[in-house]
């Protein structure tokens, strides 16, 4: 009973897995608890596109059988999780938030990352809502409806992995897997007040996920603590031959680094573009993190605005290219907000796309030079807190700009060069806002360790949604 009370208070990945492995609670009890919670809260939030109650309970029973037999079901034993609807689930058509994909064949196997999560004992409970084809920052999906922010149901959960983030913030699942092409993990993590990890480009294999922009697509995760993020990441990382962009790197566990809370980092605050495009709430959040990490340097990357422009242009062109056939044959079936941008991407001069790639190269050199002086960089994750659903403009740097394409102004330059980033929810009153902790390539451990230290010092903490 005590454990079930703790579950209601959203114990999290590590606590649940430990309790299940010790036989203190069964996986079935946990999954049933979360399925009940989903039934109660999801109709208002719209986090899920499909719920796999039978499959989840079956998997949970298999975990319990292992525990009863004295076997170890894995580091994520019995932990309920959800997945963005652009991951393959065997026997199901991967919608990627569209209706166009309904004509595709059902997936023959789970995405490789889902297979690894299952092998670690985690239990998939459903697929989660997203912007159509991951092209958006608000999860206002014309086909499946908007996902609502658990902290204020009139506001956006962020996107494009909005269903996945809101699900974790509301305690419907204890972690979620999403994707991040331009900020689709970091923006919803910021708006929903939870932790998000976008690893280095090429770290997690995308095998069995539906693409958006091949050379910008990353997989990643959401959770309610840094330790939980590390445990998930450690269970799912590793090379896979079927994703040509996946790096041939050995598994590098990150959880041990989180236990060294006394380690210090040379941290710089990103200024210039990253300061100008954030509002006062973002500045305050960054200042709190900077103070706790002892960051005294401010660094301006003068190519940041051009890098963002490059990501913006490359995304439209590459996305347009990917969907060219469907845009010609069934344009009427696209979400209008997606369709018009993809069609515009097809009309872009090749010159601009090439120029975007050249800017990317120079920006990468600029940021790698910064990492020769500093261990970590920090910046606000979003230009503001969650906007209202349907809000057409936001005010950034004294100007009213369209809301939907501009939520990623602070995330786009950084994913353009594939850096590992942890978004942390800064403790504050009012709506949540996150800060990006940016590490050099392959140093997920450093970003996660800094996040854990901030959490231990009470600077960052998951914002539990009152409404839930």
């Amino acid at each position, binding site marked *: 009973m005590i454990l079930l009370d703790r579950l209601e208070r959203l114990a999290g990945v590590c606590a649940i897995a430990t309790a299940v492995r010790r036989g203190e609670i069964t996986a079935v009890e946990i999954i049933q608890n979360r399925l009940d919670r989903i039934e109660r809260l999801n109709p208002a939030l719209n986090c899920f596109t499909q719920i796999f109650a039978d499959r989840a309970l079956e998997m949970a029973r298999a975990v319990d059988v292992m525990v009863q037999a004295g076997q170890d079901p894995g580091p994520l034993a019995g932990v309920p999780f959800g997945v963005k609807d652009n991951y393959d689930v065997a026997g199901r058509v991967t919608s990627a938030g569209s209706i166009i994909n309904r004509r595709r064949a059902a997936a023959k196997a789970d995405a490789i990352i889902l297979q690894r999560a299952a092998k670690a004992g985690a239990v998939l409970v459903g697929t989660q809502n997203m912007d159509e084809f991951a092209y958006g920052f608000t999860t206002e999906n014309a086909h499946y409806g908007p996902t609502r922010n658990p902290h204020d149901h009139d506001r956006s959960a962020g996107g494009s992995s909005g269903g996945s983030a809101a699900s974790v913030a509301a305690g419907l699942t204890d972690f979620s897997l999403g994707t991040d092409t331009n900020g689709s993990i970091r923006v919803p993590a910021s708006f929903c007040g939870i932790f998000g990890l976008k690893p280095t480009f090429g770290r997690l294999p995308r095998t069995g996920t539906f693409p958006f922009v091949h050379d910008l697509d990353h997989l990643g995760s959401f959770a309610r603590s840094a330790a939980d993020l590390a445990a998930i990441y450690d269970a799912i990382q590793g090379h896979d031959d079927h994703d040509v962009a996946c790096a041939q790197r050995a598994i590098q566990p990150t959880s041990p680094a989180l236990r060294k809370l006394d380690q210090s980092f040379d941290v710089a605050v990103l200024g210039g573009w990253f300061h100008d495009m954030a509002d006062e709430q973002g500045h305050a959040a960054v200042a709190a993190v900077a103070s706790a990490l002892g960051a005294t340097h401010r660094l301006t990357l003068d190519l940041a605005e051009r890098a*963002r*422009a490059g990501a913006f*242009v490359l995304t439209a062109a590459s996305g347009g290219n990917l969907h060219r056939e469907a845009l010609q044959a069934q344009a009427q079936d696209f979400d209008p907000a997606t369709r018009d941008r993809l*069609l515009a991407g097809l*009309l*872009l001069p090749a010159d601009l796309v090439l120029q975007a*790639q050249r800017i990317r*190269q120079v920006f990468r050199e600029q940021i790698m030079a910064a990492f020769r002086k500093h261990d970590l960089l920090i910046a606000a994750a979003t230009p503001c807190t969650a906007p209202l659903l349907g809000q057409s403009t936001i005010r950034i740097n004294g100007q009213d700009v369209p809301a939907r394409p501009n939520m990623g102004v602070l995330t786009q330059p950084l994913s353009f060069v594939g850096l590992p980033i942890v978004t942390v929810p800064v403790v504050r009153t009012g709506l949540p806002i996150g800060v990006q902790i940016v590490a050099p390539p392959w140093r997920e451990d450093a970003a996660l360790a800094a996040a854990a230290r901030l959490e231990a010092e009470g600077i960052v903490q998951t914002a539990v949604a009152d409404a839930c």
Partner: protein
Amino acid sequence: MNEEEKLTVLAKLAGLNIDPAYHLGVAMQLRALLTQGELLTSPPLAAEIEPAPAYHP
């Protein structure tokens, strides 16, 4: 030519069939992309900067 007419010509040249009902929305998005594109071309990059992947031992 107004923007819609320009878009019709551009789509034809690109070999794309775009329903006239979408022209206004596509033109608006293209304008936003080209505005960002201006940031990419000015100031110009050094001639030796290229995006090709480089393999090192």
